């Protein structure tokens, strides 16, 4: 829906151009360009070592790029700083979720971005907001005091996504790195559900190895191979009969088969 030709003419929410990164002799990325539009789910695909993780870590500021620029809504984002990327509205949810296992849900949601005045925390406001966020994500937990490590995978994902999307600086772009990796069927479904919920608010870059999941939530896919963009495949709007051929296209772009 957000990829009609008319929508395409809009200003992209994220624009990445000419990104190159070299790790001590290994050229991880060479001259990568990428655009992302608002409220769009973009799947970033590629075989192991293709550079997907490196690219998103550069976008999120965890890695510093050697060359190239990142623009959010036309404004340049400073290189190599997680804080600056966050301020620009780019937030990343890591594969291991980066949660604080022994702490409770509220602490996890608001770590580093607590609701506070002059350094003093407003616990009641945080708890209420936590309940709100869990409500929006349609997640229930037994108690807000539970240690996060006792929650199920799906619940933990809700916390991680809740933190990324609904807490702190307003997120414009969410990057999710292999969100369904290692999850069972029910939990993967839950994560995809969460994704479909947040896409109404933000643009999403999704890294995944699971093509079925990708085809369930993504609008289009960009394939990386050996550090460069191999091609782009449209997903949204594909009819059931077109899907297999699109999947094949993606795979051949990934592997470089002629």
């Amino acid at each position: 829906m957000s990829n009609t030709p008319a929508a395409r003419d809009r200003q992209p929410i994220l624009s990445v151009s000419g990104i190159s990164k070299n790790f001590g002799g290994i050229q991880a990325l060479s001259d990568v360009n990428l655009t992302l539009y608002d409220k769009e789910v973009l799947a970033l695909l590629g075989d192991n070592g293709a550079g997907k993780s490196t690219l998103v870590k550069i976008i999120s500021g965890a890695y510093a790029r050697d060359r190239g620029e990142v623009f959010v809504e036309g404004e340049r984002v400073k290189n190599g700083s997680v804080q600056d990327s966050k301020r620009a509205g780019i937030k990343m949810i890591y594969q291991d979720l980066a949660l604080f296992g022994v702490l409770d849900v509220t602490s996890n949601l608001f770590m580093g971005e607590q609701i506070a005045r002059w350094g003093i925390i407003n616990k009641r406001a945080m708890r209420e907001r936590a309940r709100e966020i869990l409500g929006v994500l349609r997640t229930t937990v037994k108690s807000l005091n539970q240690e996060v490590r006792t929650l199920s995978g799906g619940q933990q994902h809700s916390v991680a996504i809740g933190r990324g999307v609904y807490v702190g600086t307003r997120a414009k772009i969410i990057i999710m790195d292999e969100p369904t990796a290692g999850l069972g069927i029910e939990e993967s479904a839950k994560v995809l559900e969460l994704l479909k919920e947040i896409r109404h608010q933000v643009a999403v870059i999704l890294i995944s190895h699971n093509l079925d999941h990708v085809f369930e939530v993504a609008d289009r896919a960009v394939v990386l191979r050996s550090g460069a963009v191999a091609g782009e495949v449209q997903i949204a709007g594909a009819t059931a009969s077109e899907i297999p051929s699109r999947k094949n296209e993606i795979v051949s772009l990934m592997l470089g088969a002629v």
Partner: protein
Amino acid sequence: MDISLGGITGANVYTRWLGRALSWGEKYSTFMILVTLIVIFSLLSPHFMTTTNVRNIVIRVSIMLVVAVGMTLVLISGGIDLSVGSVAVMSSMIVGTILKDHGISAAPIAILAALGAGALVGLTNGLFIGLFGVPPFIMTMAMMMIARSLAEFIQRGVVPDVPVEFSRFFMTNIAGTVPPLVVIAAVVALAGHLVLSYTVFGANARGVGANASAAKFCAIPVLRYRLALYITSGMLAGLAGIMVVGRTNSANPGALKNFELEVIVGPIIGGVSFLGGRGTMVGTIIGVLIIGIIGNALNLLGIEPYWQMVTQGAIILAAVFLDYARHRKQ
């Protein structure tokens, strides 16, 4: 075959009630232990609940508590500070020597110097741990050796002639009941509690302890936090050293051996986990009270110092086991 479940249902109700009672007890377990110990020791010795003895306990606990507050913050942030005992001794040597050589009028300078030395040690610890990546255990252990060495370097033997006014300031009861020493400890403990439980700093420090790399991803400046925490620990150890001189009116470079152990065991009994993230200041206060009371009672009961060492060892072991059992069941 129909098996009557009547009896089993009854048993279920009973075990559920027991389970709930046990978990209630567990939440307040540390407090229960404290109360139990007080009762036991009062029964074992008639001298236990006297005003003099209670005063002794409170004073002994005050000095430990001041350092334990700093240790709690460091432990919760995932670190450990083994240098506190030696820093306290070093600070007491600084205070004692300055007071002996320059009289009571130099007291403010002595105090500042001691606090500054503690802060300096903390800064060094924090730098090497946070910046150079030396494991906290090793770094603070090395600092323990260094600080103790410096303490002996300042003066080989006991510093005897500390002006009496100094300890009078710390020990004379305010309003006829409470020595300033205790008030200092209470203020420090209160401040520590407020910071840990109600401020952004406290919450973020907890995050650093729970998952340091995730904290970095949350844009928490981990290095700055570690520096602040170790400097605080060092300064509080310095404060404790000042208080020791205030209490005994002398400075002894051989004092406070194994002090760091007591100061670590207190918080651990009180629920602080040395893996980081978990613990409260209230728990620490109770834990330090327990340690102080046990130490006092052992003396009171006339238990030989040799057996006291064995007991101390056993207590620490029990504390470690308690921590393990407590946090394992998740």
